[in-house]
């Protein structure tokens, strides 16, 4: 008979939940994690970060092989796509990783409860088990880590075949001739890139006048140009007023955002990627009195505590950037807090990455944000065109931009468009975590020849003394 009393019950086994569970177990707490999906890893591992990165990598390989090798002296002929094999590999990667988390749970003695959780009392979780029956868990502490779901577009019903969310877009049976992506955010642009590379014509419809609203304006402009050069068509300032499936695919009604003449656009597949919303349905939060905020997220204080003692919440279900690593950091912090230590997340240094090619990565604040806040700043920019490694690899798109406080030289934001931006941003995040000045980055030795030298040159450029440009 399994024990039903735990120091900590985590609801949700995504990046926030499973990391929290493992950390708490490391700190000596008895932990149970309830997950209803049938696999651990949450949205990220199952229908988010991991499958999309696998497809992004493989689709990039496909496009490079087809079109990118001739200039490098490699001749190829008859490059064909085996979508089924690509999807199979993606699925295998996902399975290996989700099983890996199960292994980590076993190693750390975290009890994995397969079922749907609901609050039966303030410290009681009733889990409707996937295999049947119910199990009531008694918890000294609870962490809600139920994550988020795709935001539906009013008036547009998704069927995950023709009109899809990201979940469906990761598993299409065949390459659509014309894919319309609604929403020019991280997810839409990444998945749009995947299918464009695999042969689809891609149109991105976006309500705002710019893509990726959270990105530094200059970067967004450059990024859009690069994507357009790759063949993605943008309809900005446009809203979708209706979508219906037809025999051939889908028929969309578009209108200018401010209102005006409607037009029809036909597509084989429509990806609705306008954002995500917190997932709290069915948890029974009202019954125990856990309050939500104005956006429907679980309301927490700076220590991840809800208004009910003993109940905490982290990840996509609370406010903040909906990023897996943000959820992970919060999971670590809340586990440490529950174990009686100090736990802290530095929200000023959370990097964001768009895994297109080139990648876009950013940490800290953008120029628009600094201007709005009235902060005097200096800018240092360096293009990969002038970076030797970018040249040797033929990866000359993009640049590094560093923003530093005009008075103290403290680095306030780093923004990169480039082939390895997602990896390079780690150096920037580390520097910012230690309050580095642009000069500190400039005076740190960077290996040659690497793309990272562009970071150093951008740092030098802040003081107007880049060497290589």
């Amino acid at each position, binding site marked *: 008979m399994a024990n039903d009393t735990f120091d900590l019950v985590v609801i949700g086994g995504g990046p926030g939940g499973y990391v929290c569970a493992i950390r708490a177990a490391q700190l000596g707490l008895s932990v149970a994690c309830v997950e209803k999906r049938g696999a651990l890893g949450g949205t990220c591992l199952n229908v988010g970060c991991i499958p999309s990165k696998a497809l992004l990598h493989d689709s990039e390989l496909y496009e490079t092989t087809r079109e990118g090798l001739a200039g490098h002296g490699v001749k190829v002929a008859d490059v064909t796509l085996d979508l089924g094999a690509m999807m199979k590999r993606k699925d295998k990667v996902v399975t290996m990783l989700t099983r890996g988390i199960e292994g980590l749970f076993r190693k750390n003695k975290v009890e994995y409860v397969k079922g749907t959780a609901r609050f039966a009392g303030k410290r009681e979780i009733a889990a409707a088990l996937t295999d049947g029956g119910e199990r009531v868990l008694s918890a000294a502490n609870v962490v809600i880590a139920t994550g988020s779901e795709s935001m539906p577009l009013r008036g547009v019903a998704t069927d995950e075949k023709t009109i899809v969310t990201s979940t469906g877009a990761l598993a299409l049976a065949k390459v659509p001739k014309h894919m319309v992506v609604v929403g020019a955010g991280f997810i839409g642009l990444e998945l749009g890139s995947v299918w464009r590379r695999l042969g689809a014509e891609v149109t991105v419809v976006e309500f705002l006048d710019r893509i990726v609203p959270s990105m530094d304006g200059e970067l967004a402009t450059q990024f859009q140009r690069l994507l357009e050069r790759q063949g993605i068509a943008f309809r900005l300032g446009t809203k979708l007023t209706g979508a219906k499936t037809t025999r051939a695919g889908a028929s969309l009604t578009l209108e200018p955002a401010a209102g005006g003449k409607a037009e029809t656009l036909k597509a084989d597949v429509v990806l609705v990627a306008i954002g995500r919303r917190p997932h709290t349905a069915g948890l029974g939060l009202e019954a125990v009195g856990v309050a939500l905020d104005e956006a429907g997220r679980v309301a927490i204080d700076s220590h991840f505590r809800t208004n009910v003692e003993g109940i905490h919440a982290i990840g996509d279900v609370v406010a903040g950037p909906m990023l897996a690593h943000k959820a992970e950091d919060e999971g670590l912090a809340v586990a440490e807090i529950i174990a009686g230590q100090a736990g802290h997340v530095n929200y000023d240094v959370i990097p964001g990455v768009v895994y297109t090619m080139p990648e876009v990565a950013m940490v800290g604040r953008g120029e628009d944000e600094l201007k709005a806040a009235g902060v005097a700043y200096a800018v240092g920019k360096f293009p990969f065109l002038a970076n030797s490694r970018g040249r040797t690899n033929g990866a000359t798109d993009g640049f590094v931009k560093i923003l530093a*406080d005009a*008075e*103290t*030289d*403290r680095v306030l934001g780093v923004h990169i468009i480039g082939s390895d931006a997602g990896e390079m941003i780690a150096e920037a995040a580390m520097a910012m*975590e*230690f*309050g*580095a*000045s642009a*000069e*500190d980055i*400039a*005076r*740190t030795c960077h290996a040659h020849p690497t793309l990272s030298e562009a970071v150093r040159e951008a740092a030098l450029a802040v003081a107007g003394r880049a060497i290589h440009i």
Partner: protein
Amino acid sequence: MNVEIKVPALGESIVEATVAQWFKSAGETVAADEPLVELETDKVTLEVPAPAGGRLAEVRAKTGENVEVGAILGVIEEGAVGKPAAAASKAEAKTESTPPPAPVEPPPPPAMPLSPAVRKLVAEHGLDPAAIPGTGKDGRLLKGDVLKAIEAKAAAAAPPSAPTSTPTPTPTPTPAGPRPEAAREERVRMTRLRKRIAERLKEAQNTAAILTTFNEVDMSAVIALRKTYRDAFEKKHGVRLGFMSFFVKAAIAAAREIPAVNAEIDGDDLVYKNYYHIGVAVSSPQGLVVPVIRDADRLDFAGIEKAIGDYAAKAREGKLAIEDLMGGTFTISNGGIFGSLLSTPILNPPQAAILGMHKIQERPMVVDGRIEARPMMYLALSYDHRIIDGREAVTFLVRVKECIEDPQRLVLDI
């Protein structure tokens, strides 16, 4: 049986010492009471004798380590001669249950590595990174912090080449970054004693309201007296008749009339002392030390001179004990031996006053309307104005002057 060598009581308010030197090494035979190890404190250097004879089985506190009172410096295997040390001990009367760890004080925390920009700035501007408040992670110095400090220095128009010093004493300030003229400089670490003296001097200045009043004294009477009775004095008492005994006696006579000079502040109270422990400042190789002549009012001239002589010898040999320096109520300093004509001595806290003697110099003085060459000495009395008011200070010094200029007053207590 194993006998522990413990750090002895070091005197009031002294809680730790540095191991300066071991006279014996592990394995050597030691005799009971034989000096084993030299400890250095803020005030003195003292020797710790072997508590028992035998073999020095273990040296636990190494040279240079800081140790607390009661810490175990080493272990002697009693009665043993050249035998291998036994690990276990028969803990009977000796308390071995929880021996305090020998080096108790952790080394000062290593200074945080400075970031490249910070390194450059402190080097170029000759700044002491330890003196700049750091606002970075874990208190690290950020470039902005250093820029601010440079700006503040420029605003205060301080000379940029000198490292800025902190207004309050810091426990272990780290040295400034590379100095521009480092090749032509010699760097010597301050001894513990010097550091402690520095701290106490600043403490004195920061606490008391120190003023100095001056007077001058005609030494001819004392000089004549010494000339007349020098040999007889030395023959009878075996010690030379110096000037100090006169000044000690004069100071005590004056202090009897002006009790505030022999008082101290304790919390909200003024404590007037009815005993006279007179500190006589002597110079030692380690710096200035002030051994105290206890109940100097009960000593005669010879007794005072003997006491001073003994202390001077001990000071020269670095053998002053902590007790020798404790409990003074008044201090007499003599800069004259180095040639000082006039100075403003600093108080020896918690004392209320200090008398400064100076060089005796022949000067033309007006005596009964005529100019005569007289051997004159300037006297300075630095005093804590919180305890002693101006009238009292001046009167005290006048009384000292009167007693020196006419030693018969000391005989008659006038």
